């Protein structure tokens, strides 16, 4: 008889085993290329949390992953696999940039920020809605369409940034800088007003917006009627039709929310750091969102934790690059791939083993009958 596993094993122990498996394999690869995996791990941890300013950077990266992770998770709840976070974030950044560039000569900076923020959401949502509409109304597979839309977005960005949006007298594909003050405040400046001095880092108000987004997604998915219908669409479209809803409409709405969340990522990179639109500001964070959502089991708390882990990996990975001759940043990409493999594709590999150990443990504690 197969025994049902308690909840703490299913949402706590198994994901942990999967991550450990990923790190174990990564450790073997590090050993094979001739470095000490434990030394690498220690540098990674120090680089992510302990060195001056490290924590700020870790949280800064985590902010990106919270947005893209939530984006993937919301779509997952409706059984939609949105691989297009990368493109949606790019287009979100484009929208944000267009608004900022158009309005910053006319309006006060704060007002520009308030208008640019929803623009990022709307543009991101738009880039998510098209694949959603194509899936809902035309039956095209959302995975393939979102992949194609990533490439289309990338081309669009190259075309615009190297063309009509390119700053005059510039050689690199980027827009002019926004007016002073069209930005989100950094934590270290905010804290300095309160007399607290912390090391400089790019951590900015987007992190707060990301935390709000976590709560909002939790409320949406588990505490609203729409969230209920989104989850129901993921379970059985028939039931949703029977309950009087249109699955097509729900798919489109879900993709709008998902794309909008991905679009928010642009706040952190563009309003938080660059203050202009640059090429490739998304640098793969949209794809990392998939790993984050898988690891976090599509729950905001899980996503927050997974984002912290990936934030630490990205920041610590930069430190690895510094300290080891043979380790580069791409090591992080490799670990990311392994995590997607173990927590995603092979998520249930250890289930039978854990179940066996668990049931033998239970029967042993009960003693022979």
């Amino acid at each position, binding site marked *: 008889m197969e025994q049902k596993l308690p909840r703490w094993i299913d949402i706590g122990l198994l994901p942990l085993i999967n991550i450990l498996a990923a790190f174990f394999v990564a450790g073997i690869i590090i050993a094979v290329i001739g470095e000490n995996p434990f030394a690498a791990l220690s540098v990674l941890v120090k680089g992510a949390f302990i060195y001056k300013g490290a924590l700020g950077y870790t949280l800064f990266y985590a902010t990106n992953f919270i947005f893209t992770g939530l984006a993937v998770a919301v779509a997952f709840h409706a059984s939609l696999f949105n691989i297009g976070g990368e493109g949606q974030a790019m287009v979100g950044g484009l929208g944000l940039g267009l608004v900022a560039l158009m309005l910053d000569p006319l309006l006060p900076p704060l007002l520009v920020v308030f208008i640019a923020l929803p623009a990022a959401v709307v543009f991101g949502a738009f880039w998510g809605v098209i694949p959603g509409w194509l899936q809902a109304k035309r039956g*095209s*597979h959302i995975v*393939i369409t979102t992949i194609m839309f990533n*490439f289309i977005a990338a081309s669009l960005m190259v075309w615009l940034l190297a063309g009509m949006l390119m700053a005059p007298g510039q050689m690199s594909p980027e827009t002019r800088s926004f007016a002073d003050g069209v930005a989100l405040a950094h934590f270290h400046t905010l804290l300095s007003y309160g007399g607290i001095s912390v090391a400089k880092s790019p951590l900015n108000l987007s992190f707060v917006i990301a935390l709000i987004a976590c709560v909002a997604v939790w409320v949406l998915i588990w505490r609203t009627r729409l969230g209920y219908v989104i989850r129901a669409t993921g379970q059985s479209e028939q039931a949703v039709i029977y309950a009087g809803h249109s699955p097509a409409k729900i798919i489109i709405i879900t993709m709008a929310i998902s794309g909008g969340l991905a679009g928010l990522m642009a706040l952190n990179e563009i309003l938080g750091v660059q203050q202009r639109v640059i090429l490739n500001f998304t640098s793969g964070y949209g794809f990392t969102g998939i790993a984050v959502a898988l690891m976090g089991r599509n729950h905001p708390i899980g996503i927050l934790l997974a984002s912290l882990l990936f934030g630490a990996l990205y920041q610590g990975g930069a430190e690895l690059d510094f300290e080891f001759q043979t380790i580069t940043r791409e*090591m992080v990409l490799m670990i990311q*791939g392994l995590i*997607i493999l173990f927590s*995603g594709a092979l998520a*249930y590999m250890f289930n039978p083993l854990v179940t066996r150990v668990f049931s033998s443990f239970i029967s042993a504690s009960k003693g022979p009958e």
Partner: protein
Amino acid sequence: MMAELWLQFVLALDATIRMSTPLIFCAMAGIFSERSGIIDISLEGKMLLSAFAAASLAALTGSAMIGLVGAIIISVLFSLLHGFACITHKGNQVVSGLAINILASGLTVTIGFAIFSQGGQTPFLGREQRFMPLELPFIEVIESLPIIGPSLGVIYSEVISGHNILVWLAFLAVIVTGYVLFRTTFGLRLRAVGEKPEAVDTAGVSVSWMRYKAVIIAGILCGMAGAYLSVAHGGGFVREMTAGKGYIALAAMIFGNWRPVPVLLACLMFGFLEAIAARLQGVDLPVIGQVSTDLILVLPYVLTVILLAGFVGKAVPPRAIGVPYAKER
């Protein structure tokens, strides 16, 4: 003027064939995998890994052949990993493919950096470490033919002759794919596990084993694609050298409706777009002026979206695609 235009056209055709070759290999790989019911978005990653393996081995051993064999082995190993996740453990096929793609990006640079210390590249490969172009005989004979001689001669010497062995293998792969899928029992069963696995199971054939065989074949073909990029078309591995070609191949496979010959044509069309985009860079055309190469290069993706949406024609994927098979007890 006419002769010059003709030559330009012929050179574009030649470039088309060179650009299409990796697409053809990968798209055929995709056909095998997806016809058996396994989604394969890891064409890109397997191609990247095998490009790296081929270039590294060719650099270390001095033999392009060893490079090719190593490329195939690596690619098949990752196919087996994909199979292990999707077939044995019924994992999500898209997630598994994505994991392989990201893993490939990280692994190739990490290991390349550790072995060669050249920022993730492999050393430049000399002539003897690569598959070099094969010049076909009779060029002079054809060129000396009366009337059609010169124009036919250009086509023969530029488009048909002067390709390396892997280009020929790619076209052979299309014929073999068509034959195996539609003229053999194996092919019938392979298509059946992608359409109606329970029927194949009832007939006493193992669905899992059939699917494993399909992904292994896909691995072999992706391995050739990778080797083509790094030891035939190019002279070494550069990070991210596949640059989305695996996804273009995926698009071509969908565009050709999972059928070898239409897929070949789609690959040639996408290869042609790439070839002319390179040629039109910064060229002023009469009437239309400069054409943005970005807009040409994005066409494969746009066309695929339009096709998938059913606005022109209709893409019909294998029925059981993406669904892990659970044997009834």
